[in-house]
């Protein structure tokens, strides 16, 4: 049994993915499946809440890289919120803050979706 899970929650038109545990090459497919599910259900406004994300490796980061373009082409975004500092540092290592909306809280990410003029 893996020590990683993805919880789903809705905030209006936004889907919040709550990541819990450790995201590595073994568990990355679960995040991928979660994002694919959002796409299939036409939920393109995604907030990834990393409050309980304890660890990430490049396999996890790769899932974001692989799907962000498609999500944005569909008029949405994947915003990343509430990362623990040690996890944020790994995102930062690959230059994610320049290309992804990474914010301190889920509320800020949600507000950013409203600011961009998308439906709420």
């Amino acid at each position, binding site marked *: 049994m893996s020590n990683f899970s993805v919880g789903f929650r809705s905030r209006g038109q936004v889907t919040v993915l709550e990541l819990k545990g450790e995201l*590595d*090459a073994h568990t990355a497919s679960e995040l991928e499946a979660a994002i694919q599910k959002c796409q299939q259900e036409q939920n393109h406004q995604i907030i990834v809440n990393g409050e309980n994300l304890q*660890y990430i*490796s490049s396999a996890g980061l790769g899932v974001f890289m*692989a799907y962000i373009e498609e999500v944005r082409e569909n008029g949405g975004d994947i915003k990343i919120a509430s990362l623990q500092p040690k996890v944020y540092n790994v995102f930062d*290592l690959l230059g994610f803050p320049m290309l992804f909306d990474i914010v301190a809280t889920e509320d800020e990410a949600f507000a950013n979706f409203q600011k961009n003029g998308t439906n709420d």
Partner: protein
Amino acid sequence: MARSEHKIKIPSSTRYLEDVRRFVEKHAQAANLPDDAVEKLKIAVDEACTNIIKHAYQGDSHHNIDLAVIIAPDRFTVRIRDEGRRFDPSKYVAPNILESIKKRRAGGYGVHIIRQLMDQVEYRSQGKVNEVRLTKFRLSPERYNGDGNL
């Protein structure tokens, strides 16, 4: 202080990456490395083992990966051995994140991350055994008296 060494062997499957991280974390913490060094070691060793599983062994889980942590007064080294396809570090080029995003393709960042996080990375091969050594230097080795006290 005498050098100490602790070993673990895992099958070449990603399901054991968590075990490897716990192993490295336990010994790095016991060696009094600071928290950020412990985290960096966990990630670097994870990335190295993932590369061995995916590339050296091409996803075949019927092989082994041998790890050892080597604790010295001035450094902490993780030695990882496999008997798969050899990696040539001189041929590695770190991918570009913009291109990865455009091509919707992940992957290829492990070596880049390892080089960013570790103070020293050494590759060697002898016969069919490939070895990578990942090292973090202690910040103040002269103050370490070997009893866990700074």
